[in-house]
Each structure stands twice: as C-alpha cells, then as structure tokens.
C-alpha cells in the first residue's frame, strides 16, 4: 500500500510540530509548549476533520516548502498566511481556512505570515509521529517532543496517516481579530514598581523587540523602574507573566518559557488575550490595560464561546 509522504524542501524559520501542549511537567523543568495560537490550531485541525489533539506544523514568519512525495493529502492552513500551491504543475495562490486535496509531486510553498507571527498547517489524519511525555509538542530547548525534539529540517520526510475521507472540501470565512489592548492582571510584585512606571505600563505603547521567540517576548519603551529589589528568590513562572529585569525592559513569558525565574513579576497577560498577544510581530506596538480577576475570567468564557462558534461553523 502506498504511504502518504511529504518531504521538506525548505524548512522555514521556526517550523515545529505542536499540539495542545504538555501538562504536569513544570516541576521537572519542562514548559507547557503547544501551539502558540490555540484558536488557529483548533481551526486547522477541524478543517481537515481531525481530533483536536492531532499534531500540526506550526511555522513562524516564513513557513516550509513541502512536496508530496507519495500518496495524497488533504490539508488546511490557518492564520494570516500567504502561500502558493503547485497542483498538476499549475501554480496558484492558496487561501487560508480552506481545505485542499493534493497528490504526488504537488507542492505547498508557505511564503510568509502577514502582519502576524504564527500559522498552522494541518493534514487530514495527522502525521505519523511519536508522542514524548504525553504530547506531540516540540520543546526545542529540552530536545523533547516529536521529531526528537527538533525543528523541521531540509530533506526530512514525514508520513501521514491514511485518509478516511478522500476529498474534504471545507472552508470558513474568518478574520483574526485584533484587540486594541492586551489586558493584564497585577503580578505578584506589582508594588515593587514606581507609580510613574505603573502609569507608563498602562498608558504608553511598547514595541515588540526582535529578540522574541516561543520562549519570550521582549518589549521596549518606557523603562520600568523598580523601587524595591531587582532580583527575587527564584520561583515558578507561567505563560503570560511579565517580568522586569534590572534594565527596566519587560519580558513576557511565552509557551516555551523557563519554568523558574528570578525577576520581579509586574503583571500577567490574561488567558483570553494570549493568542492575540503572540501574533504581534516585532516592530509593532502593544498597549496594556489593567483589569480585575473576575473580568479576566468572564473574558475567557467569552473567548471560549467565540472559539466554539467558529469551530461549529466548520
């Protein structure tokens, strides 16, 4: 029987296998990892008829160039992504949030994400991969996850499970929402910082620095002034925590963050705004708005309802 197989002709900038993430290993130093943009991850899997925890290829900025080496695939790309498809030697622009059926020698060239960072490539049936510590998610820094904990590399080949439904044709109209503010809650060291700096944090714009990746997002703007101590006793970190080191430039912990850190925590990004936060590319600005816990919990319910509604349209 012919296997469905793809070959990576160009690996892209940061292409990794991801799923919903890895629970219960913070205490040994393994971060949660998983798809940075959970909503787009779920949409991509739903479009190709997969279970919600199937591995997809996550890419950042420039994605991979993939070629079907054997068999057929149904695939969909989610995010705000520019890509081309070469089918039967004809080249055309691909559309996000739409399934395509390709055969041997066809190619998918994921050129770039537009005004965003991450995009997702899902195939019907999913990739044939092994889980590591209960998840397909790749944590490159610990060499943990599918593909021996490595990014995709050139000339690697991956098998795709057999397709049950030969030609899925699905699409949705979806525009990734932008928020005016990234909403935050007070961090556990909020009172270490000067009133002026708190005021700056919640009123001025911060620029996303180039030194941002799956581990963290560095910001530049007004210097945040610490009035108390610039180091604290090392303690646990979670996704979305905003730490401020001695230099006064905030760093937001993202999905692959170190599990322990010793910088004061000024604030934490609410769960409902995480997907939108991580899609802000370097050079763009973000503004923060301080809210209360109850509001954050309600906003998460709203986020979940919205996600459900989108998934139900597919």
């Amino acid at each position, binding site marked *: 029987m012919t296997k469905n197989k793809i070959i990576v002709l160009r690996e892209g900038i940061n292409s990794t296998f991801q799923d919903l993430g890895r*629970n*219960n*290993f*913070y*205490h*040994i*130093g*393994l971060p*949660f990892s998983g798809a940075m943009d959970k909503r787009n991850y779920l949409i991509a899997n739903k479009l190709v008829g997969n279970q919600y925890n199937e591995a997809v290829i996550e890419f950042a900025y420039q994605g991979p160039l993939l070629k079907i080496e054997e068999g057929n695939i149904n695939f969909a790309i989610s995010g705000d992504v520019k890509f081309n498809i070469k089918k039967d030697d004809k080249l055309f622009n691909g559309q996000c949030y739409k399934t395509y059926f390709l055969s041997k020698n066809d190619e998918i060239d994921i050129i770039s994400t537009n005004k965003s960072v991450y995009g997702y490539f899902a195939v019907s049936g999913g990739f044939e991969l092994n889980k*590591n*510590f209960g998840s397909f998610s790749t*944590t490159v*820094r*610990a*060499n*943990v996850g599918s593909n021996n*904990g490595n990014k995709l590399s050139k000339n690697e080949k991956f098998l795709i499970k057999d397709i049950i439904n030969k030609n899925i044709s699905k699409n949705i109209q979806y525009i990734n929402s932008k928020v005016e503010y990234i909403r935050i*809650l007070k*961090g*556990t060291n909020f009172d270490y910082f000067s009133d002026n700096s708190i005021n700056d944090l919640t009123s001025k714009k911060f620029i996303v620095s180039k030194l941002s990746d799956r581990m963290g997002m560095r910001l530049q703007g007004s210097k945040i002034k610490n009035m108390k101590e610039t180091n604290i*006793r*090392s*303690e*646990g*970190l*979670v996704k*979305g*925590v905003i730490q401020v080191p001695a230099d006064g430039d905030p760093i937001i912990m993202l999905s692959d963050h*170190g*599990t*322990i*850190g010793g910088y004061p*925590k000024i604030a*934490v*990004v*609410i*769960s409902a705004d995480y997907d939108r936060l991580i899609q802000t590319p370097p050079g763009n600005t973000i503004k923060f708005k301080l809210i209360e*816990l109850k509001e*954050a*919990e309600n906003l*998460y319910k709203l986020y*979940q309802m919205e996600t459900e509604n989108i998934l139900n349209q597919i």
Partner: protein
Amino acid sequence: MIKNISNLGDASLYCNFGDEINQRINTNVIKYFKNIQKKKIKGINNLTPSYNKLIISFDLSLINFEDLKKKIEDINISDEDEIKNQKIIKIPICCDDEFALDIDRLSLKLNLSKEDIFKKYLDIEYFCYMTGFVAGMPFLGDIDNKLRLERLKTPRVNVPKGSIGITEQFANIYTFESPGGWNIIGNTPLKIFDQKNEIKPTLINPGDKVLFYQISKKEYLKFNDKK
C-alpha cells in the same frame, strides 16, 4: 503551613510558604507538591515547587481561582510528616582546570586554595530544593559558608552541558548547554536529564539528597563507556 495564597494571572495559584529560604520551609513546599500531585484534582495542569513557593496552574475552562483556592486551603498536612522515599544520589565530578572554568577567580576572591575549595564543596551532603528553569536542572543547597559568592557580572553565552555551578548558598548542574552566570567548578559525565526515559527523566528531584565525589579526567572520559 501555606502563609498566603494569591492569584498569578487568571489561571494559577501562588502559594507563599514564608519569606526565608531554608530546608524546613522548602520541605513543606515539597510535601504539599507531592500531596496535591497524588490527589489529581480536576483542572490542575501543572505544579511548580520552588524554594518557598508553590505555583499551581489550572485549566481555566475546568476550574477557577476561588474554587481551587478553597480546595487547597482544605488540605491538611502536618509539620511532622516526613518526605517519603528520600534518596541519596551520588554524582561524579571532574574538577580539572578545563572543567573548573571559574576556579582561579574563585580561589582569588575567596582567598582559598583550589584544593580547599574542592574539599569544602565535596564534604557536604546537599539537599535538592527544586528542579527546573531548563529540564532536569537541580538547585542544591546549602554550600559551605566560606564558598558563597555572587554570580558572574556578565553571564556566559554558553555554559557547557554537565557543568556544576555555585552561587550564593546554592549549587546546580547544567543539564543542557545554555547561557548562565553561575561560577563553574567542575563537570559531571552523568546524564542528569534523559528525555528518552519518560518514567524517570530526572535523576535528581525536589527533596532528594546529593553527594558529589571527585573523579579524574581519565575516569571522566571513560565514564560513559562503562555503562
């Protein structure tokens, strides 16, 4: 024993066990960590014990801060409870100059001979306060009073894998090549984190005891052949 529980964001509990760092407080953290881990409370997706804190992360779609806080407050753990299955782990360390990257500077700053530093370092039975930052990295204490020094002013871009570092009252082992600012006094050939071993990936866990013993460069190089 938990002094105070607050929220860290909308999906984590931040449990403070006291402001000091000592083995008694840390033992309490570890006891809570192990107890909560065993309880498998619905919604909890991560526990991060550290010196004097325990962070409990949860899935906000399954439980919220107030409800989980109540559950944690209801847990009863007495001061007397011992940590069970405390293990002693022996770690070989080679202190040749090529591995002890900071030994000359330490010797000058601490006003001790190299031999004195190694002796003082090797004489102590260490306690593992926590594991993390990168996968499997143990934070051990407490090192001899005379060896306590702050971290490097400018961290190294790459600390070699297996390096053993000291700073203030603690020692650690770099399980991966990574940036770092600890004072490096040797290197172990032992695998401290094994991603292929999903049942027991970390050699040293919170609450374990650790002893170091010195090996020669020859033994170091042959160490992994023996197995």
